[in-house]
């Protein structure tokens, strides 16, 4: 930690201040970061980083909204359709929002580097909304993108959008959501395809999950892994006690950390046939490194294609700091994964 830039250390200390001794959260402190990243809901606001953004409402009844990012410098001569990224922010299901400063910046970098439309979902947070509220919000977002005729504002996204190249991307608890939302959506797709055998399909789904990017996903269990014991004090972003608090507040009352929402490894995990290829990003000094390895083993056991990217100097949450070199490498690696799995790519033609 001593080799980190001082800006990273200050942000980590501020994050630590936002937590009280009993584990509860001082949300107003984290809310301060939302003030400078407000996006206009009426007109898209151009940005110095060549990205325009606006907020859209997905479901008024549950207060579900998302922030949409679109690159501005689009070539007018026969532009290729833009892929769609549905981004779930991290925070242990309790913290942050789509308008949180570091995540807003991360989405803008994704949008600019990947030349894609990024939809950052502001799902409902625990402990007010426990399991499975966040997963329901994720699936509702996918359904909104799939069924709404024009889900994205026309003035924000002038270029055509390729809904056949939809990628789910999430970090920490968002990575956990990527897995469960992809699994639910793939199960619904399988159920729909099985129903179509008996009767003609009502509507062909245009949204196709092309890939899932899990950045240091937030998995856990009752047992203590070696990485949890060794890297408990490695960084201030996440510790074993804090992770236990997050799970206790998110999982249903009385459930242990071996709940299927947390423990995503072993034979009990069921994966649909249309589960997309996955890219799992892990760090060598990450608390949850062993859970990532078990998750990868589970995907391999089910015959799914997995790409594992491990950064030797990455702690949990390194992607949120643009000052670190690994943060920019991560975006480049995501671009490689996306180019391999877009619709019309060579791998799809061979597969």
């Amino acid at each position, binding site marked *: 930690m001593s080799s980190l*830039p001082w800006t990273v250390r200050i942000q980590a200390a501020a994050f630590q201040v936002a937590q009280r001794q009993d584990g509860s959260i001082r949300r107003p402190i984290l809310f301060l970061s939302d003030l400078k990243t407000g996006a206009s809901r009426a007109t898209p606001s151009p940005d110095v980083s060549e990205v325009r953004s606006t907020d859209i409402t997905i479901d008024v009844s549950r207060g579900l909204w998302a922030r949409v990012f679109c690159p501005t410098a689009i070539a007018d001569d026969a532009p290729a359709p833009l892929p769609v990224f549905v981004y779930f922010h991290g925070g242990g299901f309790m913290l942050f929002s789509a308008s949180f400063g570091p995540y807003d910046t991360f989405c803008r970098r994704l949008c600019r580097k990947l030349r894609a439309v990024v939809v950052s979902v502001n799902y409902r947070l625990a402990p007010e909304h426990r399991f499975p509220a966040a997963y329901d919000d994720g699936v509702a977002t996918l359904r909104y993108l799939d069924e709404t005729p024009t889900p994205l504002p026309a003035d924000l996204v002038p270029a055509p959008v390729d809904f056949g190249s939809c990628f789910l991307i999430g970090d920490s608890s968002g990575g956990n959501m990527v897995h469960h939302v992809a699994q639910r959506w793939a199960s619904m797709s399988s159920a729909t395809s099985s129903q179509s055998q008996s009767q003609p399909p009502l509507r062909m789904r245009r949204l196709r999950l092309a890939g899932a990017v899990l950045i240091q996903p937030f998995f856990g269990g009752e047992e203590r892994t070696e990485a949890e014991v060794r890297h408990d004090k490695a960084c201030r972003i996440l510790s074993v006690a804090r992770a236990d608090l997050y799970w206790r507040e998110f999982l249903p009352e009385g459930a242990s950390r071996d709940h299927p929402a947390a423990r995503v490894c072993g034979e009990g995990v069921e994966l649909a046939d249309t589960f997309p290829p996955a890219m799992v990003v892990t760090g060598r000094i990450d608390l949850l490194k062993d859970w990532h390895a078990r998750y990868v083993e589970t995907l391999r056991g089910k015959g799914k294609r997995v790409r*594992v990217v491990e950064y030797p100097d990455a702690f949990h949450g390194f992607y949120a700091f643009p000052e670190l070199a690994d943060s920019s490498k991560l975006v480049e690696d995501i671009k490689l994964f996306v180019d391999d799995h877009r619709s019309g790519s060579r791998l799809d033609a061979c597969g």
Partner: protein
Amino acid sequence: MFPMLTGFISYGQQTIRAARYIGQSFIITLSHTNRLPITIHYPYEKSITSERFRGRIHFEFDKCIACEVCVRVCPIDLPLVDWRFEKDIKRKQLLNYSIDFGVCIFCGNCVEYCPTNCLSMTEEYELSTYDRHELNYNQIALSRLPISIMGDYTIQTIRNSPQSKIDEEKSWNSRTITDY
């Protein structure tokens, strides 16, 4: 009522604009606080010289054939070569060789054109002395091997910027990507 309100509003806007204008110049100033210092605490800290560093010239007496190519290619004809022709073996025999580092410009031409490679550059650059005549190195002084600063535990060595860039390039490929 309204003129006072508009006055306060315009005054506030002017204050914000002035503060923003002044703050713009501090962007460059405050960004320096996030940078590592470039200075080193010489002589307790010394930089590691690069491989192509042009320091003191090293001369190997046994290899020299006294051809005087180094004198001809030198821009100021600096090396002093004293030789004698041995009639019995029909070969020049070197008697004395000296280079005055007070006059030398360390261009490296002599090292480049020496046919027997008896001249080479070292990484030694601390040639200061109180008498300029002491800078006239004879063949004995030129044959001395350079002092290695790496082995001196009292001196902390620091890499210079080109080496740091090489390290950064190496760290770029430090991550591992595995496809299953």
